[in-house]
């Protein structure tokens, strides 16, 4: 009696078996093919080319040369690049710290049955649909020391001039507020989706158990919106880490290199200085940072999943 292995080998060697498999399963694979091709074209290829160029020196108008890890070595020897990474982390913490609580409050408001919730929903979405460069110009206009309403109002109240884009601390605050203002609508939508899926009975039961507002939030709302929060925080982290246009339009990385986050540095190296190799190396570092944050969030927010 032939063994199972022999039987299966005999099967696979049977003439026409491959043809049979192809005829039976080709349709789903062929239907998936366009997506796979598009993913390869728009995801795998650019990703591979970033890694490829990060190992090369590519002066414009000249052939590129393989330089190994020189671009990375050059970057990590620079105080400027380490400053860029710190500025990015500071920017990220600021944006998340400001936008997440605001998004939670806004989500509670638009999910509630209060009158005008629909109007708030529309109003809160406005920052998200405005192009970053346009909103950056809007912010710049608002904080202009001579004509900006925010700067003028503060000057009237306190009697001193506020140079938002000159003072390093105020410049950092300005880019954080701008980005948080742009980010919170998406976080709000995701959290609101989670909020609406929580059954009212859970709150009723919590009330019967004597839970107050904070306890209801801590033991009902927060755990049941954790997945949405995870997605929101992850998305905003990746966007904030890679943000260049908003910050560049506001401060161009200044004063000095105070607000030169990694995305802005990458933009300058690639599109102003044409240092493609260094820009690609910065891109690789950005990818690594994003992956690190993803793993971190999975560990922290994903802990206790399934309990």
């Amino acid at each position, binding site marked *: 009696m032939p063994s199972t292995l022999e039987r299966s080998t005999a099967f696979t060697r049977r003439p026409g078996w491959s043809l049979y498999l192809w005829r039976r399963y*080709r*349709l789903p694979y*062929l239907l998936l*093919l*366009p997506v796979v*091709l598009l993913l390869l*074209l728009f995801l795998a290829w650019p990703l591979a080319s970033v890694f490829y160029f990060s190992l090369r020196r590519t*002066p*414009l*108008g*000249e052939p590129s040369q393989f330089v190994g890890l020189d671009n990375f070595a*050059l970057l990590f*020897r*620079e*105080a*400027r690049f380490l400053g860029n990474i710190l500025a990015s982390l500071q920017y990220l913490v600021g944006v998340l710290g400001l936008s997440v609580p605001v998004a939670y409050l806004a989500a509670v408001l638009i999910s509630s049955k209060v009158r005008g919730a629909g109007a708030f929903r529309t109003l809160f979405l406005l920052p998200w649909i405005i192009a970053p460069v346009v909103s950056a110009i809007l912010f710049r206009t608002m904080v*202009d*020391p*001579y004509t900006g309403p925010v700067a003028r109002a503060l000057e009237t109240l306190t009697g001193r*001039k506020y*140079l938002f*884009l*000159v*003072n*390093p601390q105020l*410049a950092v605050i300005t880019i954080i507020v701008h980005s948080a203002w742009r980010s919170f609508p998406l976080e709000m939508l995701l959290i609101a989706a989670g909020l609406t899926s929580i059954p009212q009975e859970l709150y009723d039961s919590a009330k019967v158990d004597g839970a107050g507002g904070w306890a209801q939030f801590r033991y009902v709302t927060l755990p049941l919106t954790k997945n949405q929060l995870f997605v929101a925080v992850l998305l905003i982290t990746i966007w904030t880490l890679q943000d260049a246009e908003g910050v560049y339009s506001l*401060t*161009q*990385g*200044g*004063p*000095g*290199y*105070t607000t*030169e986050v990694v995305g802005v540095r990458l933009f*300058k190296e690639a*599109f*102003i*200085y*044409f*240092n493609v190799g*260094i820009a690609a190396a910065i891109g690789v570092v950005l990818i690594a940072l994003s992956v690190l944050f993803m793993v971190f969030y999975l560990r922290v927010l994903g802990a206790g999943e399934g309990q």
Partner: protein
Amino acid sequence: MAEQRVVRRLSRRDFMRFSSLGLVALGLGGCVMPTAVAPAASPQPSPALKKPVTIKWAHYFDPLQSPAQKFNYAWMERMVATFEEKYPEINVEPEYFDWDKIDNRSILDYEAGIKHDVMFGSPQLMAKHFQVGDYIDLTPYIKQWPEDEVKDFSWSPVWASARQDDVQIGVPTGVHTRSVAYRRDMFKEAGLDPDTPPKTWDECLEAAKALTKGDVWGLGMYFGPSRATIELYFAPFVWHFGGELWDPATKKATFASEAGVKAAQVIYDLVYTHKVTPESAIGGTYDDAILASFLAGRLAMGWGFGSYWIVSLEEKGFIKNCFPAKAECTEETAGVMVTPTAPGAQFTNAWTLSIHKLSEHPAEAFKFLEFLIAPENLYDFPDAGLPARLSLWSKAEFQSSFYQKWLEAARKGRPMPPTVHYPELADTTAACLQEILVNKAPIAETLKKFEDEWNAKYAGA
């Protein structure tokens, strides 16, 4: 029944076949990269001249950007209309880019295979353009000009900047130099004689101190994140104290020299010691910090006031009959003085016109370029600043004391260092100055730190 099955199988197969073919075609189509092959430059108009052709003109005139730009925009529209009327077989399509990005756009688009025709360019970046090869060699066209026509332009340092290894890649449209614009009325109020403005740096500083009161700052400057910071403020002082920004022999940055330290100290003292320059000069834009502030009466003196802003002084009524230039030009509320730095310690440049390497109609593009630089067209081009044509300077319109001061300023000027890494040098020095100013960082050490950083990447290149 069997017939129906056959029909169904065939149609599915056909569907898959067509889908596959479509995908392959899409893939092949997407993979064909546009090639950056330059059309052969030919002085002869192409046969396509007989048919209507469209050429693109890349400019930087945004009427909303600054008070001066609306005049440039109006000039541009007039030029296009006049040219199209004169040459109905050629259409001109303007395309806008920011003034400080137009050079990069040309380079990037050349690499990406995106076509342009006539483009404005900066002489500071001609070395980079030449290295990349995004502009065509204009020499075959220019060789057809009469000798006098060439001499009319070739006196200008900008002509020389646009000539790289005996290849002419640009033609100047004017002379951009800077002066110190000052408010004559404020001079009188402060007890200073508006007819004898400061001639030395020390006199200028003393005047600035006397003029600073209330909301009015004595001396406006700009130290923001822009090329203007190095070109109009830091470099003139470095040159004034006998230093250089970059050494052409070693191709190393040298701005942390003793002269560089003195220059940065002067700038620091203006803001924090003498308090004659507003701290807001460290941010914002050059146009706002100098032109808008001067016109709004926030500055008694505006250093780095460009010849391209003469039109704005005229519109405000600060000067009369000066734009377009007339012999009766007079300084009324405002005047200009030659920048009080040492001879040669001033930056002069101008916009050049070039033709993009990927232009499909270089002959038509050159025809348009020639049209733009005709004396009658350059005459009232606000952003020309001052005449690029030497022959215009001897005309009566340019003999007023106002224009003679500008001519003196232009003669005193010099270009920026011809490094291919000029944008990086400009950004590095601007960031360095900002670091010194906003963080009150030690001057010598900070300059050295930034200079070392630049040299680590670009020295020798």
